[in-house]
């Protein structure tokens, strides 16, 4: 199955709604509670990253026999330095976002720790983050 969601920039009040829906879909596919929590944490971090840092974009869920894949694709402005962005504690979040408890610089490291596959590509035209969860067999 494929499902696509639109996400607006700076829409903090909607944050979590898409992750919550994806978590429900994970449950409907018989994922264990532990796997559902990994999906929820990773999706929420990526969702909030798009809200805080991007001009908005789309999230696409794609489930096949082996994988539960989610692609986060935004329309810019891109991540200047991917290596720095992956370092725990590094953040470019605004002071406003930080005052709400976001921008701890732990989002991308949290995602990487919770997924079975991870791909991050970025240019000024946009960032693509793909995360995958194996539906069967080995787990992290």
């Amino acid at each position, binding site marked *: 199955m494929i499902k696509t969601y639109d996400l607006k920039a700076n829409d*903090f*009040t909607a*944050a*979590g*709604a898409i*992750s*919550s829906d994806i*978590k429900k879909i994970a449950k409907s596919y018989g994922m264990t*509670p532990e796997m559902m*929590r990994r999906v*929820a*944490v990773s999706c*929420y*971090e990526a969702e*909030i990253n798009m809200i805080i840092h991007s001009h908005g974009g789309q999230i696409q869920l794609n489930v096949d026999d082996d994988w539960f894949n989610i692609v986060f694709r935004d329309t810019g402005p891109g991540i200047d330095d991917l290596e720095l962005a992956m370092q725990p504690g590094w953040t470019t979040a605004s002071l406003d976002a930080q005052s*709400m*408890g*976001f921008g*701890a*610089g*732990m*989002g991308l*490291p*949290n995602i990487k*720790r919770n997924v079975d596959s991870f791909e991050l590509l970025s240019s000024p035209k946009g960032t693509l983050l793909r995360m995958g969860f194996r539906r069967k067999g080995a787990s992290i």
Partner: protein
Amino acid sequence: MTIVELTQLTNWTMINAGPLENSIEGVFVGDLLSYVMGNAQAKQAWVTMQTHQNVIAIASLKEFSVLILVDGNSIDDEALQSAKDNDIAILVSPLPAYETIQKLVQLGL
């Protein structure tokens, strides 16, 4: 300890009921949301200073047993509605964070 037992033992104000008979399995304290997302466990009570709507989303996604707001803080109507929709129990402690946690430790959590 269940949520209803905690409420009776503390007299803290319950602003949303949630699943009262669910057990509380430990406590997590944090205001940095990614720190909470990355490190807290399901069924814990989450103690925080944060009061905006995203707190409810995180409490729901992480499956916390109860959200404990400190220092008499409350949440706005939208966040409260979201808590009702997601069945999240919320207690408000009148005590500052340190004393709130002290109380939870005294109660054996």
